[in-house]
């Protein structure tokens, strides 16, 4: 913490009992080795009290009371801090501490914006034995969930983030088999309603993506292929 004297008048002020004249153009920084000399000065207290000299602690101009305390080596009653990188004030009721998070990573908090969109389609098409795109989006954002309705099960579903990150590749019949024993709601955010033939992905936490995401499906059962009857997808569009 510095001790800087700002002469607010239009003329130099001699602080006689320290032997220093505080210029009215250039602020005077008290050398650390002179702190005791200034702490014992009555002349500087007079000038601070009259408002002719303002004490700055290196960050803030101090009040008469706090400035006097600082010169006397009594720690000011008020503690004021500035953020190191951008000078953000910290310490007052309305001040805030800035924390920078990295969106789109596992450890970082995903960006929750107001750009949430719900997309739907009731276009029906038959699945084949190779993956077909049900829905894809290019850009960045977060996926909050989706539903896809089929005509029958035995569909292999694949959900991929950023072209290469496969979140899941799962057969709807497997979900049915497991749920027949353990029911849903076990903490795994995928369900398949065999009555309505609806697959649901309902993640507990939003899933961030930075370049794209894609939902693909293929039929892996026998007989007539399953059709996609429609979907609902919920995600944000950051870019």
């Amino acid at each position, binding site marked *: 913490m510095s001790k800087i004297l700002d002469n607010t008048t239009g003329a130099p002020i001699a602080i006689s009992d320290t032997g220093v004249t505080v210029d009215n153009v250039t602020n005077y920084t008290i*050398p650390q080795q002179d702190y005791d000399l200034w702490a014992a000065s009555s002349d500087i207290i007079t000038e601070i009290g009259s408002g002719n000299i303002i004490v700055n602690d290196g960050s803030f101009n101090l009040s008469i009371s706090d400035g006097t305390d600082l010169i006397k080596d009594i720690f000011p009653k008020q503690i004021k801090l500035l953020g190191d990188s951008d000078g953000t004030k910290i310490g007052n009721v309305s001040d805030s501490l800035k924390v920078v998070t990295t969106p789109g990573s596992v450890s970082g908090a995903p960006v929750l914006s107001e750009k949430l969109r719900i997309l739907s389609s009731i276009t029906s098409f038959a699945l084949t034995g190779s993956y077909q795109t049900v829905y894809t989006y290019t850009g960045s954002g977060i996926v909050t969930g989706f539903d896809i309705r089929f005509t029958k099960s035995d569909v292999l579903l694949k959900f991929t983030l950023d072209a290469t990150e496969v979140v899941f590749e799962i057969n709807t019949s497997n979900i049915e088999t497991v749920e027949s024993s353990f029911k849903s709601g076990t903490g795994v955010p995928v369900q398949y309603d065999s009555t309505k033939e609806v697959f649901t992905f309902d993640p507990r936490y939003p899933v961030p993506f930075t370049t794209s995401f894609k939902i693909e499906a293929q039929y892996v059962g026998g007989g007539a292929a399953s059709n996609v009857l429609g979907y609902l997808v919920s995600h944000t569009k950051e870019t």
Partner: protein
Amino acid sequence: MGGPSEFFQSQLAVSASPGFTWGRSGNTPSGTWLLNDTVPSNKAGRTVSLSAPSITQVFVASENIDTFDIGIYEHEGDEINLTLLGTVSIITSRTGVFNVAFPVTSGRQLATKIETGSAKNVVVGTQLAGGI
């Protein structure tokens, strides 16, 4: 013209009084009084006890190559009857030795100040002549 005893007295005083020094550490701007033993010399200076004293030499030293003027003053304490005796100028140098003839009032206190310019870690000394 004085006799041998007066001359001897004067020379004794000269040899005994070169130790009037002042200093100020750190960057020292103009208008700053130098300290003697941590006390600003304008408040309490070096008391001259010689009779008919006169400053015969001023020697100055600073850490950096600085340009500044040193004022030599006398007063009665607390700047009462503060009087400038003379100045010496140091020009882009770390050291200055000046032969001067500044009459001093016996019993008054000597003080030194940076009149113009600035210096870092500056020390000023004087040599006096006079009777004892």
